[in-house]
């Protein structure tokens, strides 16, 4: 253990350089999210993740955001335990009929201003599952979605770009 702790103290972190996000994209995002109108929260956003019916693939990659390579916390983004503490809801999966209420309640429980990020192809448009007796549809059919990160599952770097865009937009508004 001593060796691992020393490594941590004296060697460079394994965290990789932040992906660059285009300025124009950020401006556009800020505009679209109406951040100026809602409130500028600064370089600090708390994220609540909700699985509304995903296959767990997106969850794995969201987990990866927290690993030392991506280290999402350095951008002021933090996963929190309660929707009451959150600003951003990251929703994955096609919304199943059984999860609809849970998703809606989480949305209601989150204090404004809040943004919803639909993560993955399923959240964006049901993916391979399509609407059925058990699937309501994409996330936007249940709660308003502000940002979509496509992919099956989206790679952590893509999610990171999307989230950095959100943080930066939240600063500039």
């Amino acid at each position, binding site marked *: *253990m001593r060796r691992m702790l020393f490594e941590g103290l004296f060697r460079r972190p394994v965290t990789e350089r932040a992906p660059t996000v285009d300025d124009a994209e950020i401006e556009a995002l800020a505009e679209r999210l109406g951040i100026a109108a809602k409130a500028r929260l600064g370089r600090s956003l708390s994220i609540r993740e909700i699985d509304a019916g995903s*296959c767990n*693939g997106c969850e794995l990659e969201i987990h*990866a955001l927290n*690993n030392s390579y991506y280290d999402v916390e350095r951008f002021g983004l933090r996963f929190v335990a309660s929707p009451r503490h959150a600003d951003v809801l990251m929703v994955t999966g096609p919304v199943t*009929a059984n*999860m609809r209420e849970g998703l809606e309640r989480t949305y209601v429980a989150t204090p404004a201003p809040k943004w919803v990020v639909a993560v993955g192809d399923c959240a964006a448009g049901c993916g391979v599952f399509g609407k059925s007796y058990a699937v309501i549809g994409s996330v936007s059919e249940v709660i308003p979605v502000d940002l979509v990160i496509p992919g099956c599952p989206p*790679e952590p770097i893509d999610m990171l770009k999307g989230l950095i865009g959100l943080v930066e937009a939240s600063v500039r508004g």
Partner: protein
Amino acid sequence: MSTLRTALLNAALTIEEQKPWPRITVDADTWRQATLAIAAGNATLSGLWAEPGAMHMAVLDDEDGALMVLTLATPDGCFPSVGLTHPPAQRLERSIVDLHGLIPEGTPDDRRWLDHDRWGVRAPLGTGASAPADGAPYPFLKAEGPPLHQIAVGPVHAGIIEPGHFRFSANGEIVVRLEERLGYVHKGIERLLTNTTLDAAAKVVARVSGDSTVAYSFAFARAAEAALGVGVPQRAIWLRALMAELERLANHLGDIGAICNDAAFALMLAHCGILREEVLRACKTAFGHRLMMDRIIPGGVISDLDDPAPIKALTTRIRQRFPRFVELYDNTASLQNRTVSTGHLSPELARRFGVGGPIGRASGRAFDARKAPGYPPYGDLDFKAAKREDGDVNARIWVRIDEVYESLELIEQIIDRLPTGPIAYPLAPALRERRVPQAGGLAHEPRDSASEGLAMIEGFRGDVLVWLRTDETGGVLRGAVRDPSVFQWPLLEAAIEGNIVADFPLCNKSFNCSYSGHDL
């Protein structure tokens, strides 16, 4: 061949040539006898699924790991309950009631399971009668004693976890009873596997549980190949095993870190997380997708391993670093204090529930589908199935640690001995030449042109079972999948016995059952 299997074959009304294991049609009495034999521990229940007018039960022979599927015609919509004598079948039966409307006669538990009264229909795969979508309250099982409170956790959990509801009846920290309520991520996968194309079905099955996507695709491909009677090139077989082991490696690394992190030991998570990320990146380089989703198709694989160097570098690196984590785990007394004797699962229960994967192997059930029933190329590979007897969180971590080493061993063997040649045979010509098997005599049995395949693959969580019926054009008529979690979830309720509320997350993470795979 065991006596039970011989007896069943003798009692069979018809025997279906279903590759690679037979499917026999039986009458209700034989069905009941089979049920009793399973309950008595002479065989293991491996799957239970339905289609309109019939019930199917997969039975695993404990002696040689051979499977057999029993089919019971259900003209009046009823069948003798398996769960009545063999509790592991209860939730499967409840799901069948919810989806197909078939009634298990004498079932002890008639509460709905997947159906949360949200669909607007009853028995969507059966009659499909409309019903109110009002989310009727769910009657939880009782607990008695001094004033107890209930802790309702989920479906929206505090971490990045799939949805499920846990209901603890507790007196302070003492857990008096834990009951799960699952079904939140039910997406109607069985419906999606009905009358569809092979491609679409493959995509859906790959997304039954995203963490086991390789195992599912592998199982689906093998079931489809068995049904269609097509072959697979050698190189593809070995590449499939390579992917499966990489997936196991990534998931086990993630799990070891995550279990330790649930005891607030973040150091392990951080370092295991780094290794896991490196595995995923190597997968991306080698196969073009971090989770290797949709890489395995019926007939072969779609991406070849052009350069084994990144994988080799990966195994070298893990071999270099992982032993240090193992040492760290072994030498951190505070961590051991949390894991040793926590969440004990008795070998007896593990055997009765036929629980596979690291959970079973940590409780003395040595079953590993790679060994028996076995599938290529594992017969040609040299590896040991990990096994422990303690059945606690510590044992489950150790089984995973052992399996990390075994997977590394396997990956190295595969890379060294990887055969050359094509990576897939096109399906279309094979389908044209395919010999149509002769089907049995029941009226509701599939058309003559239909054929069936069953496959069992060892995923990182345990044995994945996929059953498929295809038509002569290669279309999927009907499919059923069974996740290892189905038999693991109920045992979590038992493993919490004697533990306090605060230890549940540790038990839960050490099981790491799939919600999506269970709910389908």
